[in-house]
């Protein structure tokens, strides 16, 4: 799977299935959370934003960790596809972080009375978004893609330092933000009726990430290897035949 032609061949078959599964799981989670979960006794129905906000925030952080792992592989073993993976994942990570920031801001208005406060959790998440934009900007500013891959690998490895700060920000500083919804050390504070759809939403978001990453990576592979024979044979000629 580490070679671009092999991945391209495999992903051509897997992509439609991945799309179907991710749409089904995502829709089940959304419908269950927004229409069928009980109303919160304190916040009312506005708490339903949790089914969009929390999975997006989790993905925003997970994607940077994924990129750092790929970055380590790129720096140590110089595997070509892992550099492409970082580049392809960066825009998706930025998108999920942006969704978390926007939905958090919208949720903040009716619950805190303000769209934005410069508290630790919000500010550290904004820094995470800037890290993603820095990675995207750095990669596009370098013409040599091998050098660009190595540069964003290092930036991902350095940038990962923000993750424990985001995670612990609600414990280390006084903040308006509620404590983490998901913790490994304690049972969830939410009722199971509310918690179960949230788990399905998180799974749906991970599957959507896998689908988007596969799409982005395929485009990146074709872009970088467009002059190679296998691309003409496998992709470009097939497109001609389809038409």
């Amino acid at each position, binding site marked *: 799977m580490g070679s671009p032609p092999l991945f391209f061949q495999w992903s051509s078959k897997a992509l439609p299935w991945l799309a179907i599964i991710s749409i089904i799981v995502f829709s089940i989670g*959304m419908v269950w959370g*927004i*229409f*069928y*979960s*009980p*109303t919160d006794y304190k916040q*009312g*129905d*506005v708490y*339903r*934003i949790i089914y*969009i*906000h929390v999975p*997006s925030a989790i993905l925003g952080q997970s994607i940077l960790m994924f990129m750092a792992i790929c970055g380590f592989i790129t720096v140590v073993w110089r595997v070509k596809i892992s550099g492409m993976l970082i580049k392809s994942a960066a*825009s*998706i990570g930025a*998108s999920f972080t*942006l*969704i978390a920031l*926007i*939905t958090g801001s*919208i*949720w903040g*208005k*009716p619950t805190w009375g303000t769209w934005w406060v410069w508290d630790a959790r919000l500010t550290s998440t904004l820094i995470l978004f800037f890290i993603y934009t820095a990675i995207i900007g750095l990669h596009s500013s370098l013409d040599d893609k091998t050098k660009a891959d190595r540069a964003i690998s290092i930036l991902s490895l350095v940038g990962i330092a923000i993750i424990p700060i985001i995670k612990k920000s609600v414990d280390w500083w006084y903040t308006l933000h509620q404590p983490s919804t998901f913790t490994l050390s304690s049972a969830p504070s939410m009722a199971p009726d509310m918690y179960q759809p949230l788990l399905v939403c998180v799974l749906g978001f991970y599957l*959507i990430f896998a689908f*988007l990453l596969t*799409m*982005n990576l*395929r*485009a990146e592979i*074709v*872009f970088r290897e*467009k002059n190679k024979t296998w691309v*003409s044979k496998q*992709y*470009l000629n097939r*497109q*001609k035949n389809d038409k």
Partner: protein
Amino acid sequence: MINNLSAIIYMDGNGLYVWVCLLVLILILGINIYLPSRRLKKIYKENKTNGL
């Protein structure tokens, strides 16, 4: 559980916040699906123009 359509849309005055969030999610995910497809189409067109 929310029972009727108007209650689903209105959500005790909070509907606007929830629906706007859902719209933002769909919009950003839509852009993420559109951009790689457009990139692939562009490469194919370039290739066709170059006669490869």
